[in-house]
């Protein structure tokens, strides 16, 4: 194994080296960095041209410039000073790279996690209900999102998600007609998704329409849009639903030990809702992390004591997940509650550009809201366009597994459908998806060029794009190094993960 990994690393290094040479050549051949100055009539023109020529070594052959860059970078892995070079304006690329990487991770991590969670879930459900109305609707939607031109979709999102929403939130009104229309539209969609007999569809649609209409009217009349709150009631309902749902899927409701364990976790969480209230008034990251750690310990304890001998592991795992969900709900409650104050500080809450509001001064929760509202639109966009690939891969992989002999065997043994799907089919279907997820995390650090540009985030993609536009090799090569390394490492991790997921490979 070690020999295999070392061999792979050696080959990857050579590939990276060759790639860097090619990349450097392509970049410096892509144009003329002095372009802008030829048309300048500025008296300083000659000095500026001379300065750029000297800084970028434009009077040298490209291979000499490459060597200069390579020896600088060699300092990063070997002895010597790590030097990623300077960009065309003399700014250290090292510091640019740091800022860009942080910005990109902030932008893309949430969207990638969301896309993986939603995509895999949707993929499994569509596979289980192949060729149903739900399958067709979801397939249609995912392909629609997949083929959206990012730039155009971003412009629409900004128009409706930011500009129009901000106009509306200034005085949020929903007329009865609007409430009815929204209710009917949602009713049509939901019955198509849930499916069933005509009778069942009618009931679904009817209940949905009435509920949506009533909720919208109620929210508008009490001014909920500008001063929203969840309250202990909604937190409790959602948490209990999560506990029961998780148990039903992964352990079966028949397993009372697990059910009681997760419900106990919810109970403790509800007590904590009041107990830690003062702590959450003005917290910091350390306090929140500590609370998270305590939550997990308490949940694990609940699972340990309820689980008994037979299902201790399951109970502990599910309790921990329930505990984390409970914690997130309590945070969400706080954040929602802070919305009214946030609107007071920022009358147009959703921005179209930037990763934060310049000179924003609010308390902890309001600052989270500010960062969150800035993140909202790009995250929605990135998630929508990447759900498609996850859901389709999962669906295909799941369908393939479901048709395997061992699944038929499991069924014929009399195992419940839940066990067949969760334990036998899903675990095996996950193996090929691992590769895709690993690759996506590698691509993650490369940033999302267009999304970053249209939402004004200075991330990795932006670093690459502006570098290329200016025919400025140092930032482009820094981007190449990081993405190349990420691809190699993630590939490696995928291979190792394979060995864990599929015992056949280990032999």
């Amino acid at each position, binding site marked *: 194994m070690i020999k295999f990994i070392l061999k792979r690393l050696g080959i990857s290094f050579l590939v990276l080296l060759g790639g860097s040479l090619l990349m450097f050549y392509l970049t410096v051949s892509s144009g003329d960095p002095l372009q802008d100055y030829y048309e300048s009539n500025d008296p300083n023109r000659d000095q500026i041209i001379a300065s750029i020529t000297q800084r970028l070594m434009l009077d040298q052959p490209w291979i000499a410039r490459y060597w200069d860059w390579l020896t600088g970078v060699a300092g990063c892995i070997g002895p010597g000073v790590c030097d990623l070079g300077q960009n065309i304006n*003399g*700014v250290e690329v090292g510091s640019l790279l740091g800022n860009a990487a942080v910005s990109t991770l902030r932008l893309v991590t949430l969207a990638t996690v969301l896309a993986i969670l939603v995509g895999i879930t949707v993929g499994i459900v569509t596979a289980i209900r192949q060729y149903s109305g739900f399958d067709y609707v979801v397939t249609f939607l995912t392909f629609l999102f997949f083929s959206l031109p990012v730039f155009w979709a971003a412009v629409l999102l900004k128009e409706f998600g930011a500009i129009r929403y901000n106009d509306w939130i200034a005085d949020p009104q929903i007329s009865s007609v609007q409430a009815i229309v929204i209710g009917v539209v949602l009713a049509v969609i939901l019955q198509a998704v849930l499916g069933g007999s005509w009778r069942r569809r009618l009931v679904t649609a009817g209940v949905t329409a009435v509920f949506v209409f009533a909720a919208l009217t109620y929210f508008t009349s009490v001014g909920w849009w500008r001063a929203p709150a969840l309250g202990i009631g909604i937190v409790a309902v959602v948490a209990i639903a999560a506990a029961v749902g998780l148990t039903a899927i992964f352990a079966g409701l028949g397993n009372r030990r697990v059910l009681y364990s997760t419900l106990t976790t919810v109970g403790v969480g509800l007590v904590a809702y009041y107990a830690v209230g003062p702590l959450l008034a003005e917290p910091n990251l350390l306090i929140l992390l500590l609370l998270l750690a305590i939550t997990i310990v308490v949940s694990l304890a609940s699972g340990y004591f309820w689980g008994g001998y037979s299902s201790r592991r399951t109970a502990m795992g599910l309790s921990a997940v329930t505990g984390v969900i409970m914690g997130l709900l309590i945070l969400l409650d706080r954040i929602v509650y802070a919305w009214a104050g946030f609107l007071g500080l920022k009358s147009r809450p959703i921005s179209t550009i*930037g990763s934060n509001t310049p000179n924003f001064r609010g308390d902890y929760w309001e600052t989270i809201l500010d960062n969150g509202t800035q993140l909202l639109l790009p995250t929605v966009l990135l998630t929508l366009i990447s759900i498609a690939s996850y859901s389709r891969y999962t669906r295909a992989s799941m369908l393939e597994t479901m048709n395997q002999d061992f699944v038929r065997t499991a069924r014929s043994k009399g195992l419940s459908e839940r066990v067949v799907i969760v334990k036998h089919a899903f675990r095996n279907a996950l193996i090929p998806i691992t590769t895709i997820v690993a690759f996506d995390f590698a691509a993650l650090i490369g940033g999302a060029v267009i999304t970053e540009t249209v939402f004004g985030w200075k991330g990795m993609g932006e670093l690459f794009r502006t570098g290329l536009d200016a025919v400025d090799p140092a930032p482009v090569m820094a981007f190449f190094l990081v993405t190349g390394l990420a691809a190699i490492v993630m590939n490696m991790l995928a291979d190792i993960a394979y060995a864990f997921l599929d015992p056949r490979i280990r032999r």
Partner: protein
Amino acid sequence: MTAGFAAVAATALVLSACTSSPGGDDPTTGESSSDTADPSAEPTEAYEGTDKQDLGDVTTVDDQISYSLGEDEWLGYNGNTPETYSTYNSVVNDRIQSGFTYFGTDGTIYVNEDLGNVELVSEDPMVVEYTIADDAVWSDGTPITYDDALFSWATQAIADGQDADGADVPLFNYVGGLDLGSRTTAPVGEPGGKTFTLEYTNPYPDYMISTLMQFPLHVAAEQAGTTSEDVIAAIEAADVEALRPVAEFYNTGWLSPTPGTLPDEAIALSSGPYVLSSWEAGQSITLEANPEWWGTPPATSTLVYRFAAAETQVQALANGDLNIIEPQATVDTVSQIEAIGDSVTLLTGPSLTWEHLDFNFNNGPFATSLPLREAFAMCVPRQLIVDNLIAPIDPEAVVMNAREVFPFQDNYEDVVSQSYDGRYDEVDIAGAQAKIAESGVAGPIDVRIGYSAPNARRTEQVALIKDSCDQAGFNVTDVGNDAFFDQTLPNGDYEVALFAWAGSGQIASGLSIYSTGGGQNYGGYSNADVDAAWQALSSTLDPAEQQAEIVTIETNLWDDLYGIPVFAHPGVTAFDSTIQNVRDTATQSTVAWNAEQWVRAN
């Protein structure tokens, strides 16, 4: 060459600077701001002048205004090095650094009376007297004095030996090199005093924009481990070794190579209405009103300059994330801004960058045949190009009939009426055919029009020219490519070059474009009369004589057909209609040129 060429540009600018009080009796003045404000929008009180309006008593309003020109990061307090010298840097730095002069909206040079005064006190020898306002101080309270001016002069005058070619190597990394030092002797004044004089060895018409105030000497001296007195003595003695640490600090200490980390407040002192307040890497830089500012108080307490890419600006303006933008001047941008409605005001107008067609005098059919050049000029549909490509952005755009003055400047009519009789105003296919016949060259004559591609507007211009000129007997081909300046132009693989000059606001900048052997005379044009006129122009201080030389130059360039001017590039500015005193400008100072006057109406 460099030194000679350092004095360049639109002669007219200086003329108006030296002669007239703003908004003189010329009836065209009113039209000089060709703002096409959204007719439905609240008309802001039209100020007729091109200088900063006197707003009377101003009290700073506690408010925040966001503006953006582009995504480029701020590079540092010292924007006068070749690395950091850019519009995107000066849009911030001009708010915190006062100069003795500034450009008005049409390129006219005005004295910045907040800082002091500039006055030509003697023409022979040429002596300029500078006065610094008595209460002018840096933001740490230290008075702004002759010391700082001497330091500014030294950064442009002290040489650190010579290179292999025998050229002086500048000690300070100043963007203009040693040009000022080569024209002047050290400014004369009292250390710590508020007045000084600067003597030029030869008459120099662009003296108004010489940079005599940059950064605080006492900070540079302290950072270099010495004192102001010692530095002054070293400058007067031209003691390179003593100045080396100061130069080292000037070259690097005032730069910000790590985005997001503002320079120390004690180092980056302000001499303008604002001070640096905070900097979020990749996002924004914030300026606050300077408590030590002695002039008219800034109208708004906080300015936020956001690094927003051009394609995001219009929607950000509609959403209030940005309040003032100067986006790319395209038809799409204009229609998007108009679609937002009354809440946003649109200004369009020409800039000091102008498009032109230049003939190749080194080789090809046009090099030797004036009739052929005339034939080509007759068939180029200049009015059509402006109507189709420019008027949709700026409805008041006109065809340009001069090279050294712009249609929106006061003396344009004067110069054009004396140098150009309108012979190429209308497309004349028959006339062009006759001229081709006269030239004796057998057609069709191949004409390669080169430009720097990709550039959609220039591609369309070439298409329009081809439609028209092919009828006259030319065979126009589009040879636009991305190596145009790199290869096509130096190799001479073209008959006509299509590009633009970005005006710098100097009088004598055309010297290197039109005189024999000039560094930017790419086509190899040569005319002894033009050379003589440029020499006269670049060495006279008399506005009337400058105007006369421009007429001579323009007349010759029209008669010889050096090339054909086409139009001034349009510019687009848009802003939140509740903000007052936003005025667009033709110069590279950008819409932020009077940022300290912006204020949101209550």
